[in-house]
């Protein structure tokens, strides 16, 4: 029997969809029992959401005031205490999981496998390296606890309809005082979340200015899409950091990805290759983006985008 502990990500109100994808990944392990652990100041409502995920046996709530903000230095010792009863500990490959999980692994003195993209056995997994250009199969030692992050773009979200038990758990882990939360500046938006959106409209350097990005926001709002950007566009100051898609930005898997004025650097393509359909609009017919696009259109984006918006809103 393999017992997988999944570290749930949430903001105190909503369970991040990445957690449901970790459940699907863990479900690929044979003979498995899945538990979700939630750390927070008050996890009552997110615990109910976690308990509804199909395939989850139990949900553990570790509520204490120090857990209000997800600080790795605060969470890690508590997770080490909870992890004692499990063979595997998984977290999502989001900024939350990537920050936290290696700290847990090192405290346990075990290695971590980052970005699981396929489960081939309880201790055998595939993961991407070199910006997704070399996929490696790794085997871990079954005698050790396995810590991993899950590449969420590689898995569908677990369905709801489950009814896991919910219990409170307390640990006597000593928490450090050397790390303090100060504040956050979030790009608040009514648009869908980039990481989980079904539709994404994304712009590159060819947009030419932050002002011109409004063309994309306008199209995105017509079709209910999130807006992303290439690294070049972010570096040029046309788009916010959190909009970056690619090796060092977000790895996404929408149903449709519309790349506008993006040439398609290899580091960008690694972030979008799990998209179901890629549409490319670029004035350069030789742009590498057309090598991976399902549908391509060569032309001037400043004419194409407004017209596309008009045609799809009809």
């Amino acid at each position: 029997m393999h017992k997988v502990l999944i570290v749930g990500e949430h903001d105190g109100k909503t369970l991040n969809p990445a957690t449901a994808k970790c459940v699907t990944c863990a479900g690929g392990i044979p003979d498995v029992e899945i538990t979700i652990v939630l750390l927070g100041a008050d996890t009552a409502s997110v615990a109910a959401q976690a308990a509804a995920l199909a395939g989850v046996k139990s949900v553990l709530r570790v509520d204490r005031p120090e857990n209000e903000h997800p600080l790795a230095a605060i969470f890690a010792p508590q997770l080490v205490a909870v992890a004692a009863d499990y063979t595997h500990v998984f977290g999502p490959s989001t900024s939350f999981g990537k920050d936290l999980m290696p700290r847990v692994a090192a405290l346990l003195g075990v290695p971590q496998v980052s970005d699981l993209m396929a489960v081939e056995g309880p201790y055998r997994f595939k993961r991407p390296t070199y910006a997704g250009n070399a996929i490696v199969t790794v085997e871990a030692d079954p005698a050790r606890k396995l810590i991993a992050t899950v590449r969420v773009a590689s898995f569908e979200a677990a369905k709801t309809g489950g009814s896991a038990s919910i219990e409170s758990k307390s640990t006597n882990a000593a928490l450090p005082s050397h790390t303090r939360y100060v504040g956050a500046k979030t790009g608040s938006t009514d648009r869908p979340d980039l990481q989980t959106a079904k539709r994404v409209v994304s712009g590159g350097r060819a947009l030419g200015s932050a002002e011109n990005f409004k063309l994309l926001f306008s199209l995105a709002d017509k079709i209910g899409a999130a807006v992303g950007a290439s690294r070049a566009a972010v570096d040029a100051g046309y788009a916010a950091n959190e909009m970056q898609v690619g090796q060092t930005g977000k790895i996404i898997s929408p149903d449709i990805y519309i790349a506008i004025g993006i040439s398609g650097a290899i580091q960008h393509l690694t972030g979008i290759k799990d998209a179901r359909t890629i549409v490319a609009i670029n004035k350069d017919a030789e742009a590498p983006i057309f090598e991976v696009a399902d549908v391509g259109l060569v032309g001037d984006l400043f004419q194409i985008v407004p017209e596309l918006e008009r045609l799809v809103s009809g």
Partner: protein
Amino acid sequence: MQKIMVCIKRVVDYNVRIRVKPDGSGVMLDGVKMSVNPFDEIALEEALRIKERGANIEVVAVSIGVADTQQQLRTALAMGADRAILVQTDAAVEPLTAAQTFLAIAKKENPDLIFLGKQAIDDDANQTGQMLAAIWERPQATYASKVEISGGKAAVTREVDSGLETIEVDLPAVVTVDLRLNEPRYVKLPDIMKAKKKPLDVTSLDALGVGAGALLKTVKTEPPAQRQKGVMVKDVAELADVLKKKGLI
């Protein structure tokens, strides 16, 4: 603040298009251009900027790898590091082993800050900084886009999925850096000449008491599944038609 340690990895250059060996045993590295991991260059640049703000700070660049890693450490010295340490090994070093090695160095050097890149662009693991902070029992501030040091503390703005987050950590601490923290300087020829005279010490995992310990086994390396090349449409009307037919819009 007296000393900043910067951890550097020798990796295949950012511009090289990697190819997988036909027998699946790894990627082709023969004759491939090697460089300082770009994120580690940003880490070093940040350390140098703190030093150049006037404080009397020593910047020590540390790497783990084959003998030729001296080239990357010489680059770090040319950028402005005061001295360098190479932990020489031919073994493939996993993040946990790297963290244990950097810890052994940190215990000798007692730096106030350790900077690393948030990830290396070869294994893309994104683990070493966090692991080092854990076993050093010190704070971590990952994915830094702004670092402000004052009075034994660092206020670090972090790039997170939802935007930016700021945390405050007591020093000593580990900071891993993201893309937009700074733009690393270009190395000038006179600096390369000067760097040749700077100290570069070579030590080993054995001397530091760290086991190479391959805890994970890579059993196969393969190229990614290729996407099929799609269709080109002639105008916007046809594009809108295709998308509607596919039920995508």
